[in-house]
């Protein structure tokens, strides 16, 4: 039952991203053409509020529902992986119009083509696991 809360959070997330049109290929295209504030407003306001929320959590040592201190896992301090990997993801994001969350949400919206996009993304993740030792990892 403890996992039900993650399911419900996911339902909420799926509704929000659908209602705000974040899952729309057109919105992503428009964003990369700098022709609308919409996506910048969504991501920007989420980040600004997120910075405040994280500061509050750290300042007041807020604990999670199990009573453990909230520890935010720091991403490893690397340069080439986020830059190259991020660029490859950006290429895919602009083609599909979807990052991983919206891939799931679009399937729920009935766009079955995104079942294929999902399988291709799983394949991409798998191939990364095969070749990761041959890529710059610093």
């Amino acid at each position, binding site marked *: 039952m403890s*996992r039900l809360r*993650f*399911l419900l*959070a*996911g*339902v*909420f997330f*799926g*509704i929000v*991203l659908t*209602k705000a*049109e974040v899952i*729309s*290929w057109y919105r*992503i*295209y428009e964003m990369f053409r700098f*022709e609308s504030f919409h996506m910048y*407003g*969504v991501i920007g306001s*989420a*980040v600004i509020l997120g*910075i405040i*929320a994280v500061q509050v959590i750290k300042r007041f040592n*807020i604990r999670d529902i*199990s009573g453990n201190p909230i520890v*935010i896992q720091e*991403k490893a301090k*690397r340069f080439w*992986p*986020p830059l190259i*990997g*991020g*660029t*490859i*993801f*950006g*290429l*895919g*994001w*602009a*083609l*599909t119009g*979807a*990052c*991983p*969350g919206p891939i*799931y949400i679009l399937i*729920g919206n009935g766009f079955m*083509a995104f079942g*294929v996009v999902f399988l*291709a*993304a799983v*394949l*991409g*993740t*798998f191939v*990364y*696991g095969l070749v*990761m030792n041959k*890529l710059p990892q610093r």
Partner: protein
Amino acid sequence: MKELITAPWPWYVAGPLITLVMVLMLLFGKSFGISSTLKTVCSIGGAGKWSDFFRFDWKSASWNLFFAAGAIIGGYIASTFMAPEQAIALNPATVASLQAYGIDNAGAEFLPRDIFNLGNLLTTQGLIFMVLGGFMVGFGTRYADGCTSGHAISGLSNLQWPSLVAVIGFFIGGLIVTHLILPGLL
């Protein structure tokens, strides 16, 4: 009242609600990040036989799959019970640019269905948009160690440098495709 539910939600509603999801995940003792579900799926599928990268206790990560399953359900609920009657209010310049590429009625649906449909899968265009695009989403997010949720939202909220580098990468890739590749592809 019904209008509040069916009308599209503006950015200043959606952004704070996304922050709320991130904070909820922290309160649940986890961190907000969705691309890792793809890694979990690989592990469940037996990818550990091929690479140590996938050899981890995926049962401990299965909460993430519940979140992904919820996202699918949320998409279904929103499209079934909360769907707007109007088109997406895109910038007219955006609509005009797509029309020049032969994409009519931009914004009438969430995406250009002529491109994203299973019947188009085995064309060069379909393979590039759906298969190559999806592949790069999966490969790139794992190499970058995060996607829009893990890097742009969670990572920037925690003021992490690698996340800023990743977001710059997201835009390098997105701008290349939108401005240099799509014009020849659409």
